[in-house]
Structures are given as structure tokens and as C-alpha cells.
């Protein structure tokens, strides 16, 4: 069964909405913002891609957002934009399925809950923060706001969250459980996530990511939400089709990838993963990767899918920001294939490949 991508909703370092993502792809650049996180050495300045949520007020009255945290706001904005892009705003969404992928969940609220305990004692634990720290809080808020009463699923598989969740979304459609799935990925940049990134990755440099350079660390942390409105393929068109989703682990052998398709890689400047991509992807492959526009985060895999959908719709690939001069120079030429493989590798031997094609 092929799925059709009927709508895209995105917010990330490039801005908000399909037009902003398309513009970033055309221009090959997104603005980086600095964030300041506390550390033992004093405030740390980190480059980062932040996601705006102001446009959410176009869809939801401000007063309804009072108790909704940044994580859920990103998710809600991505959801509404995808619904709007699919032309379904105002439609009956009561049987819509909702599938959310997140590597880390609502981290700022999780830390706020811990703060309430650490700062004021167990007796002062915040019920509001606890309720909103649950991993499926964004899915719940989206379902409540949209009136979506179909099945709801949240998956947290770190870097593999998106392809893993997409596989289940596809099954729901294949089995006829739902007619449409609102599929989205959300990750949030909180102080502690930023601090951990710094501790694990060393000092961050304010320069573009070199996603295909396996010789040095160039990752920049990001946050955002990327949503796709998915249905079974029908006559009414859409951005593209998603033909298949495969995830798993390789303990021996190589990942089989076609030579005639464009590969959209999840490479994002993390040195150790850059080496895995270099070892996995054949040198003559035609590759693209767009993490430089939204940064490193587990949810980036959904942004990769959104970019692949735009590439297929537009019929041409975009140059890879930061790719020049690297060992696997993948400056994407004009697209000569009607298929894209979105490839994601994670630590150890995990892999995912999602096949997208023109409708």
C-alpha cells in the first residue's frame, strides 16, 4: 500500500510553514540563534535552531494556550499547518488517527517538574508539570484541540523514533483502521538538553553544519515539529507517495540501497554518525541532506521526509548546505529519478529507509 502525503506542517529553524521550508531549501540557509544555558563555568552560549510558535494563535485562541507548554505548542502548530495545507481545516476530524514521534518528549516540562521537587520538596511537586511531562502530552493536546478521537500513538525510539512511528502509521492505513493519519515529530531544545549536547559534543561553533564530513564534529542542535497528513493513495493527488518504511538493525552485511534513486541522508554533523554514513553509502551515490536547515534532533527525520516530498513535488533537488569539499560530495544535481530513499542511521547498527516517489 502506498501512502499519499496530502499536507505538510513544519516549524523549525528556517521559520514556519511549507513556504519557509521551501525558501530555506532554495537559499540553502537558515538563521541560527544562540541560546544561553547555565553551566558550572557560567552561562554557555550555544548556536541552535529554534522553532517559532507565534503563528499558533492563528488557529487557537491565546487563552486556550495558557497551560500548554512549548513542546505541545510546536506540535499543535505543526498539526494545524498540516491540516490546513491538506485543505482539511474545519472538516470533521473525529476519526483522524494521530501518530507522534519524539526522541526526548517534553523535556523542559519534565525538568520543571523535577525542579518543583528539588527546589521546594516532594510535597510541592507540581501536578500541572507532571501531567504535561508525560510523553504523549502533545498527542493528547492535539487530539483535544482538533477533536480527533481515532487511535493515538506516541513513539520514543531516540534517533529512530520517526521511521518506527511511521511504520505503525502505515499499518493503520493499510489495515483500514483510519482514513487519514496526522503524523508528526516533535523535539524540544530545553536548557538541560542544550547543556547535555555541549557536554557530549564539546564546544559548539557558530558555523554551518558540514553534514557529510565525518572527520570533525559540526552538529548544531535544533528543535521543531514536522507533520504530514497521510492517507492511502487516491486520485486526489498530494505532494508524493510514501511507498515503504523499513527499520531494523544490521549485524552483518551492508544496507541495500538502489543506485538510481536520490538518497536523502539523516547525516547532521555528528562525527560518529558521519563515519557510519560514509561507510554505508557508496561513494558514487547521489545524496542530499538538509539538516543544516533545522539542526540535529531525533525529529529531524520527519523534516527530511518533508524536504523529500518537496523535492519530488518540485522535480529538482536542492544543493546541500555545507557539503562542498567533503569526502562524499553530494551536491545534488537535477533530479533524474522519481524515487527518493530517506536513509537514517543511528548508533550501533540501527538503520531506517523510507521510500518516497511521485504520485
Amino acid at each position, binding site marked *: 500500500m502506498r501512502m499519499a502525503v496530502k499536507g505538510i506542517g513544519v516549524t523549525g529553524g528556517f521559520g514556519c510553514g511549507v513556504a519557509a521550508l521551501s525558501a530555506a531549501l532554495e537559499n540553502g540557509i537558515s538563521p541560527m540563534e544562540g541560546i544561553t544555558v547555565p553551566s558550572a563555568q557560567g552561562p554557555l552560549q550555544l548556536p541552535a535552531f529554534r522553532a517559532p510558535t507565534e503563528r499558533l494563535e492563528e488557529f487557537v485562541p491565546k487563552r486556550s494556550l495558557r497551560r500548554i507548554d512549548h513542546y505541545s505548542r510546536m506540535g499543535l502548530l505543526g498539526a494545524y499547518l498540516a491540516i490546513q495545507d491538506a485543505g482539511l481545516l474545519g472538516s470533521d476530524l473525529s476519526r483522524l488517527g494521530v501518530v507522534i514521534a519524539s526522541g*526526548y518528549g517534553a523535556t523542559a516540562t519534565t525538568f520543571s517538574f523535577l525542579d518543583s521537587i528539588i527546589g521546594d520538596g516532594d510535597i510541592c511537586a507540581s501536578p500541572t508539570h507532571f501531567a504535561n511531562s508525560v510523553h504523549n502530552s502533545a498527542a493528547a493536546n492535539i487530539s483535544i484541540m482538533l477533536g480527533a478521537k*481515532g487511535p493515538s500513538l506516541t513513539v520514543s525510539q531516540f534517533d529512530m523514533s520517526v521511521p*518506527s512511528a511511521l511504520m505503525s502509521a502505515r499499518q493503520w492505513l493499510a489495515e483500514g*483502521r483510519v482514513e487519514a493519519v496526522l503524523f508528526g515529530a516533535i523535539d524540544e531544545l530545553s536548557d538541560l538538553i542544550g547543556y547535555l549536547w555541549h557536554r557530549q559534543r564539546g564546544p559548539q561553533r557558530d558555523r554551518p553544519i558540514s553534514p557529510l564530513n565525518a572527520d570533525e564534529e559540526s552538529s548544531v542542535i535544533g528543535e521543531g515539529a514536522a507533520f504530514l497528513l497521510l492517507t492511502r493513495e487516491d486520485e486526489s493527488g498530494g505532494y508524493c507517495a510514501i511507498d515503504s518504511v523499513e527499520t531494523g538493525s544490521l549485524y552483518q552485511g551492508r544496507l541495500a540501497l538502489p543506485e538510481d534513486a536520490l538518497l536523502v541522508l539523516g547525516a547532521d554533523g555528528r562525527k560518529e554518525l558521519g563515519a557510519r554514513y560514509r561507510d554505508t553509502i557508496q561513494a558514487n551515490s547521489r545524496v542530499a541532506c538538509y539538516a543544516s536547515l533545522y539542526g540535529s534532533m531525533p525529529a529531524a527525520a520527519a523534516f527530511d521526509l518533508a524536504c523529500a516530498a518537496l523535492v519530488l513535488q518540485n522535480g529538482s533537488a536542492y544543493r546541500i548546505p555545507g557539503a562542498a569539499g567533503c569526502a562524499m560530495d553530494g551536491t545534488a544535481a537535477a533530479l533524474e529519478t522519481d524515487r527518493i530513499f530517506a536513509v537514517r542511521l543511528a548508533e550501533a547498527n540501527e538503520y531506517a529507509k523510507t521510500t518516497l516517489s511521485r504520485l
Partner: protein
Amino acid sequence: MTHPWPVAITGLGCICAAGTNLDDCMEALYSGRRAPAPSSRFTSDHPIKNPVFEVTGFCEPPELLRTSALGLQAAREAIADAGLDEETLRSLRVGVCVGTTVGSAMNNEQFCRDYRAGLDPDLAPIERILRSNPAAVIARAFELTGPCQTVVNACASGTDAVGLAASWIRGGICDIVIAGGADELGRITYNGFISLMITDDSPCKPFDKNRKGLNLGEGAGMLVLESEEVRARRGKEARSFLLGYGSACDAHHLTAPKPDGEGLRYAIAEALSCSATPTESIAFVNAHGTGTPDNDRVESRVLADLLPGVPFLSTKGYTGHTLGAAGAIEAVFTVACLERGRVPGNAGFSTPDPELGGTPVEGCLEISGTVALSESLAFGGNNSVIILGKRGAV
């Protein structure tokens, strides 16, 4: 729905406060034995120490979260029960689908405490979280090549993981899926649930008039789901079959069930429909039955409407509420009860509540039916239902 065929369950594993393997758990349930007590593993500032259901005699290795270690232990039991060796597992496309609530949360309290105090804390606790994704831990331990999924649908996670795993088998994605749920007890969830004022400071009393709330528990339940092709090739008899799965969202409130149980009604209807099971075939319901006033009221009323007269019980009186593990543990118990033709009494129940839709099973009850239903309700408004049939039901 286009998937009317059942999926075989060939192995079961369970660890919780009732026992460290399935046989011990069932013995405890049938004898009515339970031992909730204040935690021996953590302390709290609260003046009243709420009882919890801890797994005793189990120690996790230092490199893993307790949640993942519990999941791995139950998986080992289920795999052994299925008669699968590691070589066979490596020769097949085997996936892992595990529900949890805390198993992938970046919330190490000591790390945050030190960070907040202006220190540069040791990264070891964070690295432990990052290598303890419950599904990935099981996949790594057995070098499994199939898909991994950690479901974080709050307290419905375990039920959803089992239902989704069956879909992977039916869809030809996997030959075998190890599916279930795992969760550990800890200060964060303990304080969180107390803050919501839905805990009981005495042993929990699901469906009782005087119920005050839940007791937390910990543990894991795992099931081996297997394709008919592989099962036939192995000559392995199924212990039972997953006949149906349904899930729906209330879209109502972050932590409270919808008073009319709309989502649960949808989920039950979907599970019954896709399994083609008539309601009169249901021998019993293993209910969510947390012991909170809201949950038990909504759940019992829905059951009274949709499955009138069908015996129901909650096993949380023996295990506590094991959150993301609960649905999986209860699925395992449901299969074991079908096999034994007997359900245990609903521990903690003594006084009927006229506000509820009925009263649960009070003592051990002989059953003759071959099909049962297990259900979970969760934060976020998630409602999930699976229908299980014993070997002769298919």
C-alpha cells in the same frame, strides 16, 4: 477493517510484585496474596508513606535502567517459553515492541539536582538512559534485526504495544515480535501521582465503594507473537491467539477519562469488530481498574452497557499500577487465566459501590469460555483494548 485473522502467541513472560515469573505470579493471584508496602528503594518527604508494589529479589545491572532490565527478564522468560533459541531468532525477522512510561524519559533526579546546584554532573546516568531504550535493549540482547518500537502512550502503552505487534505480523513486517511493557518504580512517578491526588495511602481497592486511588507498582510482561508460517515450520503450538485490538482517544482531558467513556466504547467496539467476536463469547474482562474514583466509575459503567453480565476484575490489587507495563502484564495474566479456566478474585474489593456499573469478581471464579478482553485507559485520553482467545478458540 481488513485484518480478521488471529495472531498466535507462543510464549509468555512476567515479572512483577506478585512474582518473578508467570507461574509464581499466578500462584499469588489465585491464593489472594499481595504485599504492598512503603518503598524499600526510595524515600519521600511526604508524611504518609503510600504503599507500592515492588519487585523483590531483582537487581538490575548498573549499565541499564531498571525498567529495561525488567523488560529483558520478562522477554527471556517469554522467549524460552516459546522454545526459541538465539540462533533461530537471528535467522528470522524479529521485531520488538515495548510500552513504557519512564523507560525513555530524560529525568534522572540526581543529575538534575547536581546541575541545578551549579555542578558539572557525571554523565553516566544520562548515558544509561540513552542506552536503555526498552525495545532496543531487548533487540540488542538477542541481536534481533527487525523493527524496534517503544510505545509511550502512558498507561495504555503495554496494551498498545501488543496490538501494534500483531499488526506487524499480519502486515508481513515481522516473522516474530516480542511485545509487551516494562516500567520501574521511582520517586518521580511516586511524587507525580501523589501531586495529582489519585493515590491511596492504604492498599488499593479497585471497584470498591471506599477506593481512594491507585498504588504504584513495577514490572514487565512480554508475549511472543508469531506468524503462522513460522509457527507451522517450527511445529510450535500456540498458547493463545490475539484476536482483536482497538484503540481510541477521548480527546477530552490530559489526565481524566471522559465521563461517558466515549473513547473506551470506540476501542471495545473496534476490538470486537475486527476479531468478529460476539459479546456473548467474552468469558471475562481484565479491566484497567486502577482504584481511582474516576477510572473505576467510567470503566464499570461502560462495561455494564457494552458487556452486561460479563465477569470483570482488576489484577492491580496484586501488582499495583505498573503504568506502561500494566497492559502487557494483564494480557499475560488474561492468557494464563484462559488456559487455567479460572480467574482470581479482585483483590481489595469488599464493598459494592452503587455508583458503579457492577461489582467485580470477588473470589476465584471458574470460567468455561475461551475468549477474554483486556483493557487499558491512560493519561492523554488513550483507551486500548485487546481480545485474547485460548488455543481452542480459533
